[in-house]
């Protein structure tokens, strides 16, 4: 079974700084997808970014980018020019579309606080 590990329960940075959240996963599959979700205090889960395992190029969405290291099974999220609105729980998630199932397996989450 796939597992996802986020080793940083909490992080805190000053506004405008850059912060990197870590995520590692374990799988024997070659084709899969990785995601970062954000959950602010409103509890709404918001998709931040997606990475396909077959793509070598790291995904980027505005201030959010990932460092995907397939051999190391590592998938970190970098937030540049952090803003107060980035304060939230961040969850890393793994999904394999094998046999039609699209189950998301989540890490334990990292609570990120952006300080003014």
């Amino acid at each position: 079974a796939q597992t996802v590990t986020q080793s940083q329960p909490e992080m805190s940075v000053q506004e405008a700084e850059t912060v990197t959240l870590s995520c590692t996963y374990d799988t024997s599959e070659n084709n899969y997808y990785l995601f970062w979700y954000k959950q602010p205090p409103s509890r709404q889960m918001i998709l931040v970014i997606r990475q396909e395992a077959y793509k070598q190029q790291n995904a980027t969405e505005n201030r959010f980018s990932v460092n995907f290291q397939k051999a190391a099974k590592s998938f970190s999220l970098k937030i540049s020019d952090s803003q107060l609105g980035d304060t939230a729980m961040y969850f890393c998630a793994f999904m394999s579309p094998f046999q039609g199932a699209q189950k998301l397996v989540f890490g334990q989450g990292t609570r990120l606080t952006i300080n003014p």
Partner: protein
Amino acid sequence: SAVISQKPSRDICQRGTSLTIQCQVDSQVTMMFWYRQQPGQSLTLIATANQGSEATYESGFVIDKFPISRPNLTFSTLTVSNMSPEDSSIYLCSVGGGGNYEQYFGPGTRLTVT
């Protein structure tokens, strides 16, 4: 992305009772999912709601406790049956099935069982 609504947004229930949570999507979707998020924890998949057939449950979750309906491609319900305080959680539905395998979540239902 689809617009997803859930009802109720929160509820406080007595132990031994049941609560049905509704999930409505503004467009037809292939796949709908139900997740549980226990206090301070991550999300765990309960089941995949299949249109026209029985739901597919994950290990540790059973149909008698969490019956699910999916009458059409825009709507699903999850019932939490015979509730106990351990069922106090946030329950979230999500939709997917697109070619990019992205899943989008509803706002969640916060359930407290006393």
